[in-house]
């Protein structure tokens, strides 16, 4: 099969770091290629080279047998290469049509010609199987899934022949993921070459035809997915055998520590009753918008509580972050960038912000003590950073997540509220997080573990609760759930109310 896109011998060096070395990559028309690798393996750099966002030091590229030397994003577009990033590039106040045609508007002597534009937009949406999208709706009012469609449509209007999806499902709810997969399958049938970057091996398995695994800037393996097992791929990714994807630490549940009594927020959550015990990992499942994050935020006092009580160790507490932290609660936000971490502050600051008291005398800090404590934290969690004074934004996603977890551990909280703690981090780091959570439970801490990744919920939690439409549907022991029954419960709850 002739290859649509070929990259060979690509090398790129940033300062002292060899980000890519001798990477070759071939994509055929009508195939979906998974690009897999841990954080920092070089996936993003490779795609930046492809999109012209940065120039390779060595190597050549070809599109359809024609040499391709991008000098910037516009030359990538001219060559028919489009990127769909995790963070969408849309103007929220412009309409669907205007976003799709942005930068490639149909015009006659500078005047926008909607009559010529509309049929093209409609045709492309038909091709994607979504003619129902209203062209005049401002994009900001659409769901994330529909926004993604708009971006894909924009790529097709630009005659894209290669479309790169960078972690497209990480911000999508269940139904939207299904919808995206259907669209990608249509693209494949249309003869478009798709590069699919993802951390989720299950997705890769379902959607992709071929794979390329990167590790430390080099190709660690490539081929057809058929006949390749998951453990094989994982060992290519991490360069060693991963014993267990979901390591557990034995722990037993003790006395109740957190007690929610008909907790209601402004809209969601609604009327939640829940008891969490010491030494217990309680998973919270549900679709996006089911109220899982909102429940954590309410009980921690980040969002207003309209009615209900939160008891910690039997004592009713006013939900306010400061009060809750003093009562022994700690929260890891799902949003590392905008809430979880102060990106331009140091590791030291980020880890100790919630608990500066041990280093403070009359408001004055003992920076040396703090430096030592943070150094210990970093060693314990194996955080890879130059020093405690390095800013958090310079760290990889996995290491940033560890910093967020380090804060919670440093705080020595009794109740850990973890919101999507493994989102956007690689397999190896995920396993470390699971072990850490298990150890905390074994030490008698109580953990609320919110996740959209069903396999991890079933593997590491003792009990799993399902939320739908802000209400608690059902709590069962993790062993009494199957992936299917869990998803049915989450979706069923939605359907029942509608």
């Amino acid at each position, binding site marked *: 099969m002739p290859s649509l896109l070929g990259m060979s011998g690509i090398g790129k060096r*940033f300062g002292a770091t060899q980000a890519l070395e001798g990477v070759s990559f071939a994509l055929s028309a009508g195939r979906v290629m998974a690009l897999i690798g841990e954080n920092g393996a070089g996936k993003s750099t490779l795609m930046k080279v492809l999109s012209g966002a940065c120039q390779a030091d060595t190597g050549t590229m070809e599109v359809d047998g024609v040499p391709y030397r991008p000098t910037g994003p516009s030359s990538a577009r001219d060559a028919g290469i489009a990127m769909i990033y995790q963070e969408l590039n849309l103007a929220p106040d412009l309409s669907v049509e205007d976003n799709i045609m942005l930068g490639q508007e149909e015009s006659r002597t500078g005047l926008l010609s909607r009559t010529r534009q509309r049929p093209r937009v409609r045709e492309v949406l038909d091709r994607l199987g979504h003619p129902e999208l209203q062209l005049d709706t401002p994009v900001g009012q659409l769901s994330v899934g529909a926004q993604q469609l708009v971006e894909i449509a924009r790529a097709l209007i630009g005659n894209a022949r290669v479309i790169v999806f960078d972690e497209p499902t990480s911000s999508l709810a269940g139904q939207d993921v299904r919808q995206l997969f259907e669209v990608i399958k249509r693209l494949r049938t249309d003869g478009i070459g798709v590069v699919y970057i993802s951390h989720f091996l299950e997705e890769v398995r379902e959607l992709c035809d071929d794979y390329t695994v990167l590790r430390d800037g080099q190709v660690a393996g490539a081929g057809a997915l058929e006949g390749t097992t998951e453990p094989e791929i994982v060992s290519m990714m991490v360069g060693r055998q991963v014993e267990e994807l979901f390591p557990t630490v034995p722990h037993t549940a003790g006395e109740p520590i957190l007690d929610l009594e008909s907790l209601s927020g402004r809209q969601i959550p609604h009327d939640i009753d829940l008891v969490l015990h010491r030494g217990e990992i309680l998973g919270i499942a549900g679709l996006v918008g089911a109220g899982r994050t909102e429940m954590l935020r309410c009980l921690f006092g*980040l969002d207003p509580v309209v009615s209900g009580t939160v008891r910690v160790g039997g004592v009713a507490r006013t939900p306010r*972050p400061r009060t809750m932290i003093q009562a022994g609660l700690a929260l890891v936000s799902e949003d590392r960038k*905008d809430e979880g971490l102060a*990106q331009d*502050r140091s590791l030291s600051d980020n880890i100790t*912000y*919630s608990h*500066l008291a041990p280093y403070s005398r009359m408001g*004055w800090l003992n920076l040396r003590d703090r430096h030592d404590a943070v150094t210990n934290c970093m060693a314990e969690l194996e955080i890879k950073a130059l020093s405690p004074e390095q800013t958090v934004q310079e760290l990889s996603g996995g290491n940033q997540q560890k910093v967020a977890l380090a804060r919670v551990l440093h705080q020595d909280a009794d109740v850990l509220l973890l919101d999507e703690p493994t989102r956007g981090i690689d397999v190896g780091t995920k396993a470390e997080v699971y072990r850490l959570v298990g150890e905390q439970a074994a030490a008698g801490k109580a953990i609320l573990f919110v996740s959209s990744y069903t396999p991890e919920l079933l593997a590491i939690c003792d009990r799993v609760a399902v939320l739908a439409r802000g209400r608690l549907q059902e709590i069962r022991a993790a062993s009494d759930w199957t992936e299917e029954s869990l998803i049915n419960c989450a979706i069923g709850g939605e359907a029942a109310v509608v």
Partner: protein
Amino acid sequence: MNSAGNRLSNLAWSLGPLLGLVLVALIFGAIEYNVAIGEDRQPQFFSKASLQVVLDHSSMVGVAALGMTLIIIAGGIDLSAGTAIAMTATVIAWVYRDGHAWLLGDAATLSTGQSVTLSVAAVSVGLLTGALCGLINGGLISLLRLVPFIVTLGTMTIFQGTGKTISGNTPIRAFGKVPDMVSAIRDPYPDPSWLLVSPGVWIMLILAVLVALVLRYTVFGRHLFAIGSNESTARLCGINVLRTRILVYTIAGLFVGVAGLYQFTVFTQGDPTSGLGLELKVIAAVVIGGGSLNGGRGSVLGTLAGACIITVIQHGCVLIGVSDHYQDILIGLIIIAAVAIDQLRIRLQAN
């Protein structure tokens, strides 16, 4: 990049504003030297007297800019600083004028004790006025949850109007009613001469060291950076954002009070309209010194260098005989250049 190299380059960049100051001084020094030789007179830019004047003239903006640095680090802004300074000066002048008349009664002169009491009262009332202005700003921003830019835009004119009300719409003069102790604060050629620079400069330096220590070594300082860098994170970590914000504006208000005292002592008068535009110089000093209006960044050393750069330009232009509209243009260019260099630094460090 290794850790030591990293630290070295960070140090070099943090000295950037200081290097900028040296550069600007050298350029003006060289030009003034040539101009002076051409006019057959003694060059005076690089002289002790020149240094004394520049530092003294930097002290009012410098002191106010220290407070502004705290506010900007916490992600805020204070557009009312200028009119608050003028209002404080007006209030001080008012206390001196009316207090003097009241204490004097039928006597010919005030006794030493009376004049000390009067000064203590005037200075305290001045500082309190500044702090109150800050408290009002911080309170409105925190309790009404309004944007600092809008709130202080409003209080900017409110403070000017209040000042005019107090003064009866004309400057309040307190000539001859202020003891030498107080008016000497801003004497560029101090007596005793071993002080080298005016007492006001020394007070500014002491306050600067204090602010630098607070920023680095206190919980409050860390909280300021946290709030300015990411307010959501600060909330998540249980930091009392409202209280910290009210506190930082109040402290900055105290610095405004000191600046008001400085403004008053130069001509021993208070003119409530003299503050308009001053806030921009104060903000410019912080920005030239590396402060980021997005919050989370700013340094004491940079701010002081920024304040001095502005004065050096003004002083240099006077010595060369360049008219003051060129000064404005130059200061504007320096602000833009400083921010552009800072952006360049961020881009370089990102690579």
